């Protein structure tokens, strides 16, 4: 469904992602692993359109999004949960959800069933929510646009364990519902691998490994080496 070809880009003049190609089939969840600073988040931002594409193409469901504006990509079916959550602090929880809403499976009602704790704070300004609630709201906002492709950047970052568990459950139910493809960036390999079907590892803006998550989870040695943590390195 998502076809990324020879994508190069970064922030302004910088080049963070280099000549990267990637395919995500329908109804698949893909995890992106790698040390920090290797360009995982930037890759998502390039897909969303907030980072600057230097060259290469992004095609979603046959539609070439490479030169399209950010909101057009959202309309084409890309939902985004950024690393810093970026809920709109001056909007209420409901407004945060409705402001992005488009018709489809995910109605306000279904979203609130998925995140009951949001329902209890529906009229509060999002800026007053706790970190975990903001994270859920960020996901809820992305879902309310009924995306074909959901991009999530470290949804577990900085959350209490109980919240992470809730979140993992929610994401699992999303990925098994079969309605959408998920691309998940996660520093914590354990969470990432357990949530995904496929997995890639990035280093210096490029893909250094591409395989199934189950295989990689079984091979700790390979994982450590691929993540560039050993003294030998891979070069």
């Amino acid at each position, binding site marked *: 469904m998502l076809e990324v070809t020879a994508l190069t880009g*970064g*922030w302004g*003049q*910088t*080049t*963070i992602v*280099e000549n990267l190609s990637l395919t995500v089939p329908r109804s698949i969840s893909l995890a992106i692993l790698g*040390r*920090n*600073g*290797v360009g995982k988040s930037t890759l998502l931002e390039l897909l969303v359109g907030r980072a600057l594409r230097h060259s290469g193409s992004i095609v979603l469901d046959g539609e070439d999004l490479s030169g399209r504006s950010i909101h057009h990509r959202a309309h084409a079916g890309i939902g985004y949960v950024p690393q810093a959550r970026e809920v709109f602090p001056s909007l209420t929880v409901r407004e945060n959800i409705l402001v992005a809403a488009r018709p489809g499976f995910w109605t306000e009602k279904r979203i609130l069933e998925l995140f009951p704790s949001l329902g209890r704070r529906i009229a509060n300004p999002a800026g007053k929510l*706790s*970190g*975990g609630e903001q994270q859920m709201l960020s996901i809820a906002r992305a879902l309310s646009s009924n995306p074909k492709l959901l991009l999530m950047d470290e949804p577990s*970052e*900085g*959350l*209490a*364990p109980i*919240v*992470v568990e809730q979140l993992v459950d929610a994401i699992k139910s999303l990925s098994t519902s079969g309605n959408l493809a998920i691309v998940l960036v996660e*520093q*914590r*390999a*354990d*969470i990432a691998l357990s949530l995904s079907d496929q997995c890639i590892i990035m280093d*210096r*803006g*490029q893909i250094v490994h591409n395989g199934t998550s189950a295989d990689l989870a079984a091979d*700790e040695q390979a*994982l*450590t080496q691929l*993540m*560039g*943590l*050993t*003294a030998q*390195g891979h*070069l």
Partner: protein
Amino acid sequence: MTEPALVVRSLCKNYGGFAVTRNVDLELPRGARHALIGPNGAGKTTLVGLISGAIAANSGTIELFGRDITTVSAAQRVKQGLVRTFQVNSLFPHLSVFQNIFLACSEARGTSQRMLGRTSGQKPIIGQVEAILDMLGLSADAGRPVATIAYGRQRLVELGIALALEPRVLLLDEPAAGVPSVEVPLLIHAIDRLGEDITILLIEHDMQIVQRFARTMTVLAEGQVIASGAPDVVMASEQVRSVYLGKSGHQRFESGKAHA
């Protein structure tokens, strides 16, 4: 002459009850090549800010060559030889490479106060600038506006400005961030060639660069030092691996509760 170049003791920084830097100790002997690593949010940039004086510490001390500089302003620290580079380029985009570095040399030597006399007449400074350009391999680009040269070369200009300030201790904040891989060797060579009289603290993600450069290293996580020593030893530490890979994320869960 034996006192270390930079000593940081029990440094703490809180933002409204949330500790981003917790009791950090760091000691760099003269001529050190020390790397500082840690996952996102570990507080590396805050630590650099504290050491360079851009951020004021809540408690703890910082000493530069035996002198306490904890309360000294950022500009004064620069004058005393503590110089940093920036993660994101902060240059003078419409000025040429030469002029960017000239500005720094000129400020360092007080020449910038001169209103009479042409820029081209400042021979000693021009010589100094040319030496830096030469060392960094930037001579060919000297006349071009910074905004028009490759990003990797802009990072070299950033380094050049730092060198122009005649550093004795140099803090390099992710010098290779955002640089396309073909241009990375330029930067590594430049760093390799820095004089042994300069003490260097390098903040970097890229293990290749760290391993090539560092003789000692420190790992920071959740605002505190979790390991310090020779790279081989540090990287072999189970705790470091777990922080980096999140294999057993228990410890992060515990600390996460504090501010969730």
